[in-house]
């Protein structure tokens, strides 16, 4: 009981505000990162499908590298990358420095785009060929087929995995605290370190992320239920 009351002790006053600002940053990083990541991922998937072969190979290499390395290592590269380039260039006049927040957002977007692009690729593959052939035989153009047939069908097919991916991105935002992005975990860590209250602070964090994940999952399921009305006979 003592531990629990001390947990709630942190939820008001200055500590409360710091936690809230961290939460706001986490949610901004998460939502903006997801939207940009999904958009970039969609672009990658389309470019790989319809673009020339070398583009496909290049983007495949990009996707494999991002998916084959830990997000933490990517975050370190972005974080240390800027200052190191300044040093390497000698006089420091040409300098690529990223605020931790922007480095974090960039990292999330690029990381997410690799995974989202694979989801979209699988979605393209899963659309029955016959549906596209039917569109062709009734005289749809390529663009009409993409917009009227492929996109809506793909949305239904990939929605569950998109929700999972978006939840994964939320959890990855916590890693950004290691490169001093002032998100939720960063702010709660400050309090935990100050008061030597690690178990309490990590319990708060676990509960908040858990709640966000459950909310996201519930929204995803509601969206799926709405869309399932359009899921006509898949034979």
């Amino acid at each position, binding site marked *: 009981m003592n531990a629990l009351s001390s947990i709630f002790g942190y939820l008001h006053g200055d500590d409360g505000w710091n936690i809230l600002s961290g939460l706001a940053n986490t949610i901004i990083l998460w939502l903006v990162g997801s939207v940009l990541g999904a958009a970039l991922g969609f672009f990658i998937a389309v470019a790989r499908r319809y673009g020339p072969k070398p583009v496909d190979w290049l983007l495949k290499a990009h996707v*494999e*590298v991002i*998916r*084959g*390395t*830990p*997000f*933490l*290592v*990517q975050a*370190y*590269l972005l974080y*240390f*990358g800027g200052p*190191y*380039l300044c*040093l*390497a260039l000698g006089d420091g006049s040409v300098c690529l420095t990223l605020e931790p927040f922007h480095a974090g957002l960039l990292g999330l977007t690029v990381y997410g785009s690799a995974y989202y692009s694979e989801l979209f690729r699988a979605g393209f593959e899963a659309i029955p060929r016959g549906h596209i052939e039917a569109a062709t035989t009734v005289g749809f153009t390529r663009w009409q087929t993409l917009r009227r047939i492929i996109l809506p069908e793909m949305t239904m097919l990939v929605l569950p995995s998109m929700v999972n991916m978006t*939840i994964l991105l939320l*959890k*990855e*935002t*916590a*890693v950004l*605290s*290691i490169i001093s992005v002032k998100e939720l*975990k960063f702010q709660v860590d400050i309090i935990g370190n100050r008061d030597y209250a*690690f*178990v309490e602070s*990590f*319990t708060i*964090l*676990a509960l908040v*992320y*858990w709640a966000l*994940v*459950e909310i996201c999952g519930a929204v995803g399921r509601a969206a799926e239920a709405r869309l399932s009305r359009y899921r006509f006979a898949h034979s």
Partner: protein
Amino acid sequence: MSWELFWLLVEASGLTILYSAVSIVVGFFVSAAVCAGVLSSNRPISAAARLFVSFFRGTPLLIQLLLIYYLLPQIGLNVPSAVAAVLGLSLCTAAYQAEILRGGFQSVPRGLIEAADMCGLSAFATFRRIRLPIAVRLTLPALTSEAIMILKSSSLISVVGVVELTTMAKDLASSTYQPLPIFAAAGFVYLVINLVVAGFGQLAERAARRGHA
């Protein structure tokens, strides 16, 4: 960056592989129990198993690792940080593997079980000879991805001071002031390990597709 530094990273990657492999194997056995719990008709057991899955899939692994790392000494268990880290990784992957297993069992076609039924196979024989091999075969791709996920996630145990690839990269980066090449090299080592694992996964799938599950 010198070969000596790169070699230190490769050596540290052995620990990454060790911790990941132990976590995946321990996680598999925990996941079998959790999956059985989720599918159990006993309500309290099923609810507890679902809660376990929901928590470990619903919170960042980084937080789980830190929570376990600080919680164990408070409840009187003073274990080395590597043990706490492997415990965290194992519990997390157990939650994911339990869901993978459940999906596998649920997608074994009904007709194959009916055929076993008509041949008079007992429930246990049907499980051991038909359902289990087919479920494992169906889940091989997902289990391979999960193994790769854990290999990458194991980089997070660097935050509790366990020596492995990312910890080594961090130490070398700060002692040599060359973070960019060192982290790039560390990323390269992770990439190679994961490509090898993915390759083995594909071999296993190909073997399974012909039947030898």
